[in-house]
């Protein structure tokens, strides 16, 4: 029989419990209130990266084999659909290029800065929704690929969320449906500006600050207003699903369903916030001015 402590040594279980509870609560407070434990998370994330990849392997293999056995007719139908979309989108792209040119000319006439296209990074969703408490996605790109906290993330259908934690090889995206996640938006039909707020577990959004008599209908499209400088203007966010008006309340209760492929898409686009482009422009201008002097 190996040697072993028969009598317990060290602090009693109660003391240990008190110590670990205090430590855990301190971590929770530091994480939620001050966001100051990011380095612990980033370090541990790098540590678990190989295990994460290993755990993804069975699902990856399954997906690959399903893809391999896709029938010829399905592939052809898919290809045809994509070709059709390509024609539609090329026409729109040509139109949008000429519109962009017109817009920038008009903005120049009014002494407004031209709108610039922002560089974006394509990333793959490693996994999503593993945490039962929060609406989050994890991407397979991190600070090494140039991701920073605060970047908006979208897929083909619309806005998905915002990058909230970045480690070397992965990044966490908090989705628009996350509780208390607010986005400045406007209603596409009439330009009415407001804030949207995630509802948490139900997977919907609400517009909590619209007055009871606001002009809003079910089916209205909600897009980003670009006011905060985090989200570029005009990204589709949600569709109004249900409106509840009552004379006893000041605000209407508006429920919206997100349009971004939450939990569906495989690839996402990480955009650069317009703020960073503006600040880059400001630095460039000041630099040019100082050169001029």
């Amino acid at each position, binding site marked *: 029989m190996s040697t072993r402590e028969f009598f317990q040594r060290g602090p009693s279980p109660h003391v*240990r419990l008190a110590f670990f509870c205090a430590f855990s609560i301190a*971590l929770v407070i530091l994480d939620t209130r001050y966001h100051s434990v990011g380095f612990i998370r980033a370090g541990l994330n790098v540590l678990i990266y190989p295990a994460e990849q290993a*755990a993804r392997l069975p699902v990856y293999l399954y997906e690959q084999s399903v893809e391999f056995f896709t029938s010829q007719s399905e592939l052809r139908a898919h290809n045809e659909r994509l070709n059709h979309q390509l024609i539609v989108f090329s026409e729109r792209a040509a139109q949008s290029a000429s519109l962009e040119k017109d817009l920038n000319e008009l903005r120049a006439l009014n002494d407004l800065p031209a709108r610039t296209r922002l560089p974006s990074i394509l990333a793959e969703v490693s996994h999503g929704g593993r945490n*039962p*408490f929060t609406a989050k996605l994890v991407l397979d790109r991190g600070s090494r690929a140039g991701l920073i906290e605060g970047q908006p993330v979208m897929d083909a259908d619309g806005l998905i969320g915002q990058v909230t934690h970045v480690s070397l090889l992965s990044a966490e995206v908090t989705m628009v449906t996350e509780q208390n996640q607010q986005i400045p938006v406007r209603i596409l039909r009439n330009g009415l500006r407001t804030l949207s707020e995630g509802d948490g577990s139900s997977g919907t959004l609400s517009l909590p600050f619209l007055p009871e008599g606001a002009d809003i209908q079910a089916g209205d499209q909600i897009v980003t207003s670009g006011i905060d400088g985090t989200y570029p203007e005009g990204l589709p966010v949600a569709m109004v699903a249900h409106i509840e008006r009552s004379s006893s309340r000041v605000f209407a209760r508006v429920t919206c369903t997100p349009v971004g492929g939450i939990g569906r898409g495989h690839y996402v686009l990480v955009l650069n916030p317009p703020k960073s482009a503006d600040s880059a422009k400001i630095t460039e201008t000041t630099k040019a001015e100082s050169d001029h002097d």
Partner: protein
Amino acid sequence: MISQHDRVLRNPSHIRLIWASFVIAYLLTLLPWSGWAVMLEPNWLLLVLIHWWLREPWRVGQSAGFFTGLMMDVAQTGILGVSALSFSIAGWLTIKFRTRMLAFSPVAQAPQILPILIGARLVALLAVWLSGGGSPNWWLLLGSASDFIFWIPITLVLHQQDLRRSHPSP
């Protein structure tokens, strides 16, 4: 007749088995669970922890619970410290009632472990709620049922492996 408690004292578990069980439980946690599966996913790490808290509290103590909880928080992209807190409390409860629970067979232990499993989930729910994560989703407590169902096979498999690998005392 040799009691389970004596057997635990006589046959120390293989350290490699302890590590392997944690690695497997962690890989299971890292699988891309989604949708309803997230709610019904057993707390693999907690089940393995409880098994070792009962059998090897000298090697797997309360600190192991805390650090495993921290790793779980990172794996789940949750608030850092929530699982660490719930595992620390579960560890204290298990070690407190350890001697009594070892007097029973693994199957008979299950109903006694159920309150600890529910308690661990409740602590995590309340911690998320109090830290401003929104109203608690009580459906998540349903996961304790799958913890309960998986407890028996997990503890039996680990125990069998233990008996096979451990060196019987002379």
